[in-house]
């Protein structure tokens, strides 16, 4: 993940041109990169937790509990990587914790791999 350069510059495009510049300054390309990295990791975690719960035979709500646990673990690890300063890397410090956890892609990936591995291992 990248923090902005030493002198962060404000957006020069896509802003409403008749309002004065705000007080928040960030580099949009870096923010987007960080969000992409976060999404990438979330999909990986969904995949791995799906395979894990499938192989272990957990069913029902406990499986979803493992899913949430996995994402919580990911958030904690990424927090450590940002050296406890998530506001330097993201626009809002809550995005690390809650972005994309209940998004369609991650949930469906988890359910698919959970179903697949559960069926292969237990219904075989």
């Amino acid at each position, binding site marked *: 993940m990248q923090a902005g350069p030493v002198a962060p510059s404000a957006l*020069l*495009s896509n802003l409403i*041109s*008749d*309002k*004065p*510049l705000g*007080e928040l*300054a960030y580099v949009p390309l870096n923010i987007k990169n960080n969000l*992409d990295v976060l*999404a*990438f990791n979330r*999909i*990986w975690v*969904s*995949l791995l937790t799906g395979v894990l*719960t*499938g192989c272990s035979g*957990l*069913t*029902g*709500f406990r*499986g*979803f509990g493992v899913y949430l646990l996995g994402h919580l673990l990911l958030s904690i690890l990424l927090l450590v990587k940002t050296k406890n300063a998530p506001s330097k890397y993201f626009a809002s410090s809550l995005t690390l914790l809650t972005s994309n956890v209940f998004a*369609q*892609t*991650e949930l*469906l*990936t988890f*359910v*698919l*791999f*959970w*179903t*697949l591995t*559960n*069926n*292969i291992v*237990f*219904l*075989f």
Partner: protein
Amino acid sequence: MVSQDLVLDRDVRDWVLIPLTVSVILMKLLQQYAVKLMAAPKPSEPPKPEDVQQKNTLARSGLLRANHGFISEAGFRQRRAYFAGKEGVLQQTFPAKGLNDMMGNPDAMQGMLKQQMGGLVPQMGMGAFVNYFFSGFILGRVPFSLSPKFRPMLQRGIDLPALDPSYFTSLSFYIMALFGLGGVFRLMFAEDAINDAAQMAQMQMGGMGGGGPPTLDPAKAYEAERQALDVVEYRSRLENSELRSLKLLRAQLAA
């Protein structure tokens, strides 16, 4: 909550579940590469300098409208006069262009249609294939219990009302795999997706509706730009910048 598990034939796993998943993966891979191969070919003729000049003029005046808050008011007025004033660049008139526009448009539409159809047709074809060959049996079980309302969604074509709604048929598994593997593909093609997004953003900002010279109608575009420039009211974005920078610096130093 623990329901009696159906015992399903191992051959069903070997010959349906795994091959279906693998073929969905392969189909998505093929789609991705086919899209890359069928990407719009470069135009055969080099663009004419007058067309490029017109596009650039329009781009510059668009930039002026968007970023006028960063230059001084006098500078803005001077630039606006250059574009929209009495002898401005945008006052240039053009001989009427008639049929040239019609020839350019179908090409642009065909490109986008082709991409969308290319994405949809193989999926539907494969769905029909799966429905024809792999119908009438249960493929597997979702590991969590579902309410009976899910039964028509997951068990098309099987009329056993006593069967657990967690069991699904091949067609519903195919659709589940289609959506679920989309996430996996984002993993595999992460760099390509980022590049595509950047390219699309650039194309939308830089290109003028279609992109090719035949689709640009300079008289109308210039007229629209002139009117838009006249509407703009100058407002400096740098107002109160000393106060704001003071606040920012204080916040940064305190943190």
